[in-house]
């Protein structure tokens, strides 16, 4: 493993820390307490060979220096230069580079949090402490870290789902027609005609046709989002039935279509992720009603994971699939 790979792995963990919320966690040496930041494979202070573990550390620190960055900004900040960046000396004894608020100056006390930016990546944010300073929410807002979508294009969903989403906040256009260029897309794969979840006798030709339609929808949705990708982070959420992960007995057609959908979404992710499009696979079970689904989908836009499960059965299936996909399949077919 190279130094860079070790760091990348560490940063994946920071994504989880940020997604979970709560206190700041950083890799810390079990033996000497040194905070290993950026993440290291071994301790650079006491030379212990045990990889520093992610532990909660105090968020307090002091600004050592702050700069306003004007040049060559990343996608999450493109519309908000200049971006304030600071070196913070943590009370627990480490120097970290963090985003901060433009008002902070040398010597200010700050609290550091791991936060998700609009591309779903974790960033460290130093928020000034005490009265008269901007709040966490204000700092988040000033940095453009809020990820809530404003304009959603809905593919394959009914008007009831569109209404339910609009009642919560964002505007929804059906199939991207009529609205502005969206910053989020929801593609409902199970309800796409002619895939009828649970159909017993789906013919092979129907399955092929359905797969092509799904591919079409995903391609159209991705292309629509790419119009906005240069200006701001964009997310495509593909919703499919949880049975994509395992066939139910006597449901070969529906499960096969769902499995095809699952693969198509993965292929879409591979194709578009490098160009800045975040693609989320959302597995839904049939116990979820429209209003719950609308709320859960908006949460998905703000979450960091590429895979989410909505509904109790979907969550259980997803968990089981992650642990051992083969066992799940045997169980669901009644072999175990």
């Amino acid at each position, binding site marked *: 493993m190279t130094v860079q790979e070790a760091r990348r792995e560490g940063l994946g963990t920071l994504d989880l820390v940020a997604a979970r919320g709560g206190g700041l966690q950083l890799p810390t040496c079990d033996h000497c307490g040194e905070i290993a930041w950026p993440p290291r494979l071994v301790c650079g202070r006491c030379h212990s060979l045990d990889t520093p573990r992610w532990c909660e550390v105090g968020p307090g620190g002091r600004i050592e*220096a702050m*700069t*306003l*960055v004007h040049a060559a900004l*990343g996608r999450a900040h493109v519309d908000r230069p200049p*971006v304030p960046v600071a070196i913070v000396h943590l009370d627990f004894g480490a120097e970290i580079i963090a985003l901060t608020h433009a008002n902070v100056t040398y010597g200010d006390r700050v609290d550091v949090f791991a936060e998700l930016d609009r591309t779903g990546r974790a960033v460290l944010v130093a928020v000034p402490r005490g009265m008269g300073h901007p709040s966490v929410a204000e700092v988040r807002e000033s940095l453009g870290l809020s990820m809530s979508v404003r304009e959603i294009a809905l593919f394959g969903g009914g008007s009831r789902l569109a209404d339910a989403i609009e009642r919560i906040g964002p505007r929804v256009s059906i199939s991207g027609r009529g609205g502005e260029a969206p910053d989020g897309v929801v593609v409902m794969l199970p309800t796409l005609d002619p895939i009828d979840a649970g159909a017993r006798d789906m013919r092979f030709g129907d399955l092929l046709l359905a797969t092509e339609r799904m591919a079409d929808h995903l391609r159209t949705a991705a292309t629509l989002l790419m119009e906005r990708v240069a200006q701001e982070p964009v997310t495509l959420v593909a919703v499919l039935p949880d049975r994509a992960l395992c066939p139910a007995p006597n449901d070969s057609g529906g499960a096969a279509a769902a499995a095809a959908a699952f693969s198509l979404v993965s292929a879409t992710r591979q194709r578009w992720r490098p160009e800045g499009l975040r693609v989320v696979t959302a597995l839904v079970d049939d116990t979820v009603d429209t209003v719950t689904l609308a709320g859960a989908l908006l949460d998905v836009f703000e979450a960091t994971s590429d895979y989410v499960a909505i509904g109790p059965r979907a969550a259980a299936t997803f968990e089981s699939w992650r642990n051992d996909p083969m066992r799940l399949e045997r169980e669901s077919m009644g072999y175990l």
Partner: protein
Amino acid sequence: MSAAYDGVVLAAPFSLKPHRSEAPTLRLVAEVIAGVLDTAGLRHGQLDGLSVTSGTTGAETALGIADHLGLSCRYLDGPVLDGASAIAAARRAARLVAAGDVDMVAVIGADRGPVAAPPVSPQTFDPVAADRETIVLALITQAMMRRGATREDFARLCLAQRTNAHRLPFALHNDGPMALEDYLDASVLAAPLVVHDRPTPISGGEGFLVLREVDAVAARLPFARILAATERHNAYRFDDLQFRGGLARDAETFWLEAGIEPDAIDIVETNDECPAFSIMQFEDAGLCLKGEGPAFVRAHTLTRDGSLAHNTSGGLLAAGRPGAAGGHLALVEAIRQVTGSAFADTAEGRVSWQVAGARVGLVSALGGVAYDRGLASAAMVIAGDGAGDVDGAGAQGEPA
């Protein structure tokens, strides 16, 4: 203190003119080796050592490069220490030549630019996916300003280097001096750094020879002796914000080894990733006390015709940075100056940028900017006979 580098010298300094950027790095390396040998009047077959530093040869090793160029070597290496590579390469080659393990080493740095930063940085390292090095250097510069440095001090360095680069055939910005207003009003990269505070990436190459003094004399080559050399990487890892590099730790032994006082140097070449890094290197090398760098800068003209000639060919800021060969640029220029070879014959006649009476030069490097600081540090003092025609022909730059 280590043994002196007796009997080993540096010679045949060579710089490529800024190159068309589509030339592959291997071609640049080949051209620099040819240029070095041409300068020395030697043939490829006489080389038995090669040190190549480059960031753009991909997976190619020194072994593959030597094979590609048809060189049969007893020493092959290529330090990858950013700006400190050149000094490290010269230091290692000198030890091997002194020990008789190898006769003649070509030390080459070449890179094609603009070199894209390696894709190492998820956003935590690269908080806004901007040029990470620039952000770190801006923060370090901020800290230096808190201790008394001003933007005018940084401007002094930039302007002096532009003046030094004037008319130099291989400098990128060789079109004459820059006005203070142009510097102060330039567009901001990351406050307080403006575009003039960071080098422009170019394609280029630099090289020189490390060989025995007797061989240099036999080949009638002007040469420079190594009075002292040091490397110290990743020093002071517990400093909150970088205000010193590894050289600060070893400066005392370094000058003891050189046998001269810091004020005996005629020229100084620093690895100027940004002006604050040059100031830090002045302080680390003991040219002034820690914290007095800004005052030191105000007390000198830093130009070739004034007091303390600094980065006499414009440094990285005015000459452009040929990727990993940035440190080679400084060392090659120092060899040119102390051997009296700082001139070039161009279509418009001979251009000379020789510093009058330059015989002892300090070369310093601070680079390898990692998460929040520059990790690599190295320095070398070299001495030659100078131009020979200035105040007493042929006086030796011997250690005191």
